[in-house]
């Protein structure tokens, strides 16, 4: 058999961004072949952070030991990069965009062997790893939720929740790139950072715990009075949050909003209000999904994934996104989704987009100016959490 597949060999190219100097090397080619100088094997880097970049964290359910984080260009509806991760990872972005953090767990032989837990520091442009900071107390292993790992508003500390089954928060100093200690928050969970050395957590008795820690991670914990009913109407784990102002909007199973100002040492609880009119309730509308609520800081608009119940369907994907003015507590819009979504977020710029993670799975983007669809990009098996630069 004769063929023109003539040129076969190990070809050696140079590493990233260095030009390949093949021209001189192709002297052994057949007479018919001409070297072309050789195309570089380049290495792409990401552009600087911008408001409509979306990081999508994917715990891959059928292969839970190996998650991914997708970097999505939310303007162009395109994949910018795919990061690898481990078991039930969490993610956070430095407030100054200078680092990306992945909170992660591995076993030395994939699904067995020695366990290691760490916070991994990534350069946001090259996606190269700058540090693995050991988390000696481990991490909470759960289907990933945003508020299980956070960074303080000043960027100084990483906070990683742990239930083993003692409930603590591991503190990592981002300057020293070192684990500094654990803060115990007995009976509480989730992390809402409110200052460089302070965070709040929700407790199973309906109170809010606020922990203030010093440089040695010695902490004092104060407990608020009960602000929601954990038996009758617990608040969900994902919140609308303004990390810059220290404002948290909890949403409950029954569709109540519990606004809490955590900017001061003592949390200030504002009156709860309902997402639902009597008519909405008669139609059995409920909030639901996973990351089911988002806040646009500048306009104080809340976006909530809604579906028609019955009760106890708090994880059901939403068919609409309802838009509320958090100041007037009035619904100002309803966006019918093209595809049901489990998670949403909004960009924090002046002309915000709504990003919806559909069950398909795909990321469908809407322009919040008029609710029109901007585009759709399909990726992954079970993408779950959405992060935007500056949220």
């Amino acid at each position, binding site marked *: 058999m004769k063929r023109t597949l003539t040129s076969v060999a190990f070809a050696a190219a140079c590493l990233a961004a260095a030009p390949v100097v093949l021209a001189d090397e192709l002297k052994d080619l057949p007479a018919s072949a001409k070297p072309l100088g050789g195309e570089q094997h380049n290495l792409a880097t990401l552009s600087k952070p911008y408001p409509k970049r979306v990081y999508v964290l994917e715990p891959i*359910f059928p292969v*839970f030991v190996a998650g991914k984080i997708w970097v999505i260009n939310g303007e162009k509806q395109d994949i910018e990069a795919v990061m690898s991760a481990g*078991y039930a990872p969490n993610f956070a972005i430095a407030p100054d965009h200078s680092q990306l953090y992945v909170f992660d767990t591995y076993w030395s032989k994939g699904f067995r062997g020695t366990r290691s837990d760490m916070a991994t520091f990534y350069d946001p442009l090259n996606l190269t790893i700058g540090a693995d900071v050991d988390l000696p107390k481990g991490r909470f*292993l759960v289907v990933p939720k945003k508020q299980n790992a956070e960074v303080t508003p000043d960027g100084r500390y990483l906070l990683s929740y742990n239930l083993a089954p*003692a409930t603590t928060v591991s503190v990592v100093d981002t300057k020293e790139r070192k684990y500094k200690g654990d803060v115990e928050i007995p*009976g509480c*969970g989730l992390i809402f950072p409110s200052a460089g050395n302070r965070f709040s957590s929700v407790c*199973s008795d309906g109170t809010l715990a606020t922990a203030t820690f010093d440089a040695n991670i010695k902490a004092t914990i104060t407990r608020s009075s009960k602000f929601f009913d954990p038996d009758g109407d617990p608040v969900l784990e994902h919140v609308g949050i303004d990390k810059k102002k220290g404002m948290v909007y909890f949403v409950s199973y029954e569709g109540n909003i519990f606004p809490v100002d955590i900017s001061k040492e003592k949390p200030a609880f504002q009156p709860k209000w309902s997402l639902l009119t009597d008519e909405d309730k008669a139609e059995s509308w409920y909030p639901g999904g996973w990351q089911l609520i988002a806040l646009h800081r500048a306009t104080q608009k809340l976006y909530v994934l809604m579906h028609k119940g*019955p009760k*106890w369907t708090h994880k059901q994907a939403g068919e609409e996104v309802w838009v509320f003015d958090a100041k007037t507590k009035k619904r100002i819009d309803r966006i019918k989704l093209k595809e049901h979504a489990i998670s949403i977020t909004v960009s924090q710029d002046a002309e915000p987009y709504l990003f919806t993670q559909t069950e398909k799975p795909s990321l469908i983007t809407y322009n919040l100016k008029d609710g029109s669809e901007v585009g759709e990009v399909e990726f992954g098996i079970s993408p779950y959490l959405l992060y935007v630069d500056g949220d």
Partner: protein
Amino acid sequence: MAKGLQFMDRFFERMSRRTAQQVSRRHFVSGLGAAMVGATFLPVLPVSRKAQAAEDPAAAWAKQVEAQTKDPRACNYWRYCSSDGYLCSCCGGGPATCPPGSVPSPTSWVGSCLNPDDGKTYLIAYRDCCGKDSCPKCACLGSAGEKPAYIPQLNNDIIWCFGASSMIYHCSSAAIVGQI
């Protein structure tokens, strides 16, 4: 505050003290496992609360999904009202049996489901089978009565492998442990 929560708080408290005593997490967890497996006292301390059929999540779920008692590989099998994950029944195990090569977890959380045949409500221990990566067949998401993870003893997102030799989730089982 309900008894169960009190128990949890005591539980957390005890564990927290141990943590504070600089017991390493891994010793800590394996110690927990040993304690729980070996203990004569098994810490099942349920919460007492009056039933109200109209708001009973177990009954509501059973109605919504047309719960059945015949096919433990279907998401609407009656015991799975609060189960979230891959069914062990579909991966070589059963509703209360771990598949070959996996590790039964000594810990679980307990929910309650309505058996549509006898109309009675049973306590169901949601125990994970651990030690291998996701099984992964028959993904079912029941959320009747399920609560956020800051109430861990009522949450089904947690990897319920505490005390097992591995914290890797393989599949979800659902064993009957009592009747209400």
